């Protein structure tokens, strides 16, 4: 699932925060800026920064990187330009993973229509976080620590590679917590649908080769669990 290059379109505060957080996951990060501003900051950047314009046909990009191994982040501050950029990238690269920023729900819908693989509506996301923090402070803190690795607890996606051990067994039947000290939250089936472990669909789904479990547990237990499942976790 790992991609080798992150392509960030737009040079602003969002870019800096994204770069800071994703640098561990990508071998290569390239930033593309639309205007001449922020030149002072650019000089200090440790990443390659090039210029682009919205009428680009991306030929240079095609030659410089393996586009199948890339994830594009469209973070232009002007919504119309961001939509145009997304549609332009999708037109050129059918399989490219495009993560785009949207200010609100309306822009998010337009970006999805334009072909973005994942849209982050900033206003909604921030509002959700604020509300969760106020209404469910403890669970928000725990999840935050798990997701962003600020505690010993980790979340992992583990592939089932030796399903014969669980032949005819439903994920629902096993007390994962008692047996392996991990909690299976959900199962990603071969049809790419994620189902909560206790949902009625998951209840009727026998464990199969290739299923991916989303699991929470301590690093040591997750390693052991991954060994039992016959795969590596990341």
């Amino acid at each position, binding site marked *: 699932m790992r991609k080798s290059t992150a392509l960030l379109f737009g040079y602003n505060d969002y870019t800096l925060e994204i770069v800071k*957080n994703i640098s561990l996951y990508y071998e290569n990060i390239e930033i593309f800026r639309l205007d001449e501003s922020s030149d002072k900051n650019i000089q200090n950047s440790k990443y390659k920064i090039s210029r682009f314009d919205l009428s680009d046909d991306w030929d240079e990009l095609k030659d410089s990187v393996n586009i199948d191994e890339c994830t594009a982040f469209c973070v232009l501050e002007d919504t119309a330009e961001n939509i145009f950029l997304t549609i332009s990238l999708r037109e050129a690269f059918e399989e490219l993973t495009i993560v785009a920023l949207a200010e609100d729900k309306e822009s998010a819908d337009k970006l999805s229509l334009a072909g973005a693989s994942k849209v982050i509506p900033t206003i909604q996301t921030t509002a959700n976080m604020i509300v969760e923090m106020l209404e469910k402070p403890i669970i928000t803190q725990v999840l935050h620590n798990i997701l962003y690795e600020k505690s010993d607890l980790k979340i992992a996606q583990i592939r089932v590679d030796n399903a014969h051990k669980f032949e005819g067994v439903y994920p629902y039947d096993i007390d994962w917590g008692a047996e392996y000290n991990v909690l299976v939250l959900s199962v990603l089936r071969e049809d790419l649908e994620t189902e909560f472990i206790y949902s009625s669909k998951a209840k009727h789904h026998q464990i199969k080769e290739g299923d991916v479990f989303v699991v929470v547990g301590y690093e040591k237990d997750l390693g052991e669990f991954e060994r039992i499942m016959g795969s590596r976790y990341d």
Partner: protein
Amino acid sequence: MLKRLIVDGAYAISTSKRYAKIKHFFYNFLENDSNKYKKIFDLFMIALIFSSVAILIREVKSHVDDSLLFFNNYIISIIFLIEYLLRFWVTSSVSEIIIKHSEYDVMLKREFSLLKAFREIIAIKMRYVFSIKAIIDLFAILPFFHELRLLRLFVLFRVFKLFRYAKSIQTFGSVIATKKFEFLTLFIFASIVIFVSSVLIYVMEANNPTSPVNTLFEAIYWAVVTISTVGYGDIAPVTEEGRIVAMFVIVAGIAVFSFTTSLIVTAFTEKLDEIKDDKLINDIAKMKSFYLICGYEGISKEVAKKLSHNSDIIVLEENDKKARQAKKDGFFALNYDPGSIDSYRKLRINIQDQVKAILCLGHSDVENVYTALTVRSFNKDVYILSILKNKMNKNKLMFAGVNEVFYEKELVGMIAKGLAGQKIAFEAIHALRSSYNGVDMQEIVINERIAGNYRSVGKLQSKKFRILLLGLHKSDSKEFLFNPKDDTTVEAGDYLLLIGNIQFIKEFNSFLYKKDGR
């Protein structure tokens, strides 16, 4: 010697906590609209007024039982008298006036003048006694002296007391009062028209034997009936000159009538927002707990929408257009500046007890720092959350006393990290967070009752309800126990963190309140 005694007495009263408490209680009881007993008291007084008027009406043509008359003449009057005396007492503080004069004289190194102090006390008390409301109160007591037949009519003054108890009548009065000058002009105009036309009609018609106008009183009566556009028709001019006067009065009457209507409508339109805000402030004062959102645009709109599902929220927005929009969106919104202490004073709320959190969600860091500092200047403990627009200003917000800062761009970075690192896991958590497919994450606080029913995690039987017990948050050690063992003790104050179908979680929650699940 007497002066010394009086001043000592004034100090004793002024410093007595018990006396202050009693006086404060009666003041709230009689004058404070947000006092919970005042509404009951007002309703009781309104009931007394109506029963008194009903007895008066019944008395006109039928015999009324002696006990009812006794109730009307004595019991009600005595209750009104007590109320009058209490209002007279709480309206101003005699002891404070004496102390003020005494200290003033000491400061100027001259002998304390008891006479001057008494003069001020009398002036202040008399100001109250001669206020319209106090006069009505006094007249309402007069039927007590029912032996004087004329005084019985003063029962009707009890109706005027309704002004005091019915808030809507007070509002109407205050609205009309804003157009005092216009109404006075109108009154003078109408009086001149009535005076001139009644004299004219008298001069034109009085000597005509066929005319019904024979006296000046009949002429004035005709002018008043005509100008008011009522026109009974019992008196009408018969001479040509008289009819010309009538035409003039009719036209003036239309003007007076339309001017009065437009004055009342304008007064109401102008005061409408204020009236609505007043009502809103009264409603807010009665709320037990709510979030106070400062600013209404972008993020705050979304936060308000989401928080309003489970909690009450109040929006403070300085910009009139945005405040209107918040009202239109169905929120309790006030067009007040969140950065002004006066706004919170006007709200008449107890921030410590009523406000769950103050959310500074204005469009700039400058605005949010200012709001946070304003709140901190009068309350040190209330929880303040703020959004951060520019990372450089984070310390300024923390310095201003904000408890939690949300930086939108940092959140986006973290989401990008989640998507880059563990896409499936991240999406799964995201789906759970958004209550996708009815699955939600909830925290249930263990209270004494639940802790009494179930002493260990194993007894909770969460699996039976098809929900995942992610962990237990221990209140004493502030520790999070992931996947707790069955023998882990459950204590009051702990939190259960659960993931599951919302409906199943609700069922599980009600199960916890039943001893051994029964």
